[in-house]
């Protein structure tokens, strides 16, 4: 099970044909206290790079893009009650949604952990 990252700071973890998506720990730090997460409805078809969710801190709202294409099969209901999970467990309990991959090849273009780390450091 590998984790991959986008330049827009989403992560995706794939098991079989199911991908779990969230925002990176780095992104969580940049956002500050997350107060609300708007998640996609189950059944929605997402396109890679297109808007999938919205994450809000007190003074900022940011779009979260789908790192890969697919159909949403689950949204993290826990985030509705406790959006702070994004801060405390960005890459674990604070996941956003799961989707069924429609084009696994899209994963190839994403960064692995080391590449993402270097990317973030390069941005700073």
């Amino acid at each position, binding site marked *: 099970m590998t984790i991959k990252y986008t330049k827009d700071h989403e992560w995706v973890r794939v098991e079989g044909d199911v991908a779990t998506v969230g*925002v990176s720990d780095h*992104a969580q730090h940049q*956002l500050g*206290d997350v107060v609300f997460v708007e998640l996609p409805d189950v059944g929605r078809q997402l396109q890679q790079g297109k808007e999938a969710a919205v994450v809000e801190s007190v003074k900022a*709202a*940011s779009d979260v893009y789908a790192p890969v294409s697919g159909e949403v099969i689950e949204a993290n209901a826990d985030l509705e009650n406790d*959006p702070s999970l994004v801060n405390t467990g960005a890459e674990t309990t604070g996941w956003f949604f799961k989707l069924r991959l429609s084009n696994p090849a899209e994963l190839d273009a994403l960064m692995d952990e080391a590449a993402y780390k270097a990317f973030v450091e390069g941005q700073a």
Partner: protein
Amino acid sequence: MSMNNQGRPTDIRSTTNSAVPDTVTGNRGLQIEEPLIFEQDASGRCGVDLPEVPAVASRLGAVKPRAKVGLPGLAEPQVVRHYTRLSQKNYAIDSGLYPLGSCTMKHNPRLNEKMARLPGFSDVHPLQPESTVQGALELMAELGRWLTTLTGMAAVTLAPAAGAHGEMCGIMAIRAAHEAKGDTGRTKILVPESAHGTNPATAAACGYAVEAIPATEDGRVDLEALKAKLGPDVAGLMLTNPNTCGLFERDIITIAEAVHAAGAYFYCDGANFNAIVGRVRPADLGIDVMHINLHKTFSTPHGGGGPGSGPVVFAESLAPFVPVPYVVQDKDGSFRLVEQAGDGPAFGRMKAFHGQMGMFVRALSYMMSHGADGLRQVANDAVLNANYVLASLKDVMTPSFDGPCMHECLFDDRFLKGTGVTTLDIAKALIDEGFHPMTMYFPLVVHGALLIEPTETESKAGLDQFITALRALAERAKSGDAEYFQAAPRLTPRRRLDETAAARKPILRWTPEAAAEKVAAE
């Protein structure tokens, strides 16, 4: 994820030394704690005395009368005290300098309040026969004449209820004008990065794609970038002038020419008209349409967030597209309202009735008080005051741009680099010094913006005191006393508030259930 750069620090840095002295009541001298009206309820108490209801047979039809609303009962003295105490927790122009950039918080003359309350204006129904409201229509026509004369424009609508509503009106007129020409291929509105948030929100609401125009090093629109984006797909440009960095767009006439050459219209956000009123007529700059915030330039009170009023002036190019209703004067000298758009190019309506009449009276009262000579002096003094603040702070803070400013001066947070103090902290410390903070973190084109607009109604002595306070704070921040700032404000009715908690679990109203829980917990 698109990282949005509007974010600013909102966390409360807790401090051990509470600012609250230990009184039995929680009151602190003139600062008196005040419960919600709902917490002062006693059933059967009432603040009005009404006549008995005549016995009649109900004509409500099949609907059953309502059993209960749930409002609290208070007597008149309690109500007076409640709102008086609450008012004392507010900072206001009447109490001191309110240098919010782009908001033009100037003195609100009380004559204007008195005029708006003349029964001939305040006690007139909007749908009375026109023969009984000739004075009201005359006032609207006269206000329109002042606005078109001051801007050099051909036509005006008074209907929009606020600046953003005026923007909507202007962009609708632009769309209507393109449609009337059969030109339907224009899908974009260009908006500079420094624009107020309402500009892109308005353009997007009207179905346009918004394209940002970058700023140059000197804080103005990048003319070459603008020209590169202009084309047959551009419906218009929305530009604030003077812009939100407090700078006059030097190339504005060239910009207007380029916009027109591309077949597009030039919308000007008139939020900063105060800087140039009486000195420059926007029509002479090539602007096609502009809204005017009566609650900024023409001093109608902000009232804690409204009501505003946002008349829009139109050049000849867009004059046929003025929305209904509007006032016309007939040959016999009488006034009438055109209330139906009919089949002509006019569109509308944008709200119920004829506009914010109460604001029209106040604004005209203000204009007549100043006259053409006084309004020119308004612009002069507003610009002089802002430049005086800029000149007096530029050695301790970091101005974002060189050269003179217009009615407001912009600093960024480079002077705070490495101090651990943020723009927000400076603002909160300024509150303890008895001033309302400046506009913070706007415009977005500089980091940690501090935008100061003193307005013309501040005295030199008042500015000097503000400058002294801000200089001292800047120096204190650089001396490494970050903790002082992070704990500010200390002397206000409430200290920093937990905005994260408010947004995570929104409590947007009082409920009897919550009140019962509170009692149980105590």
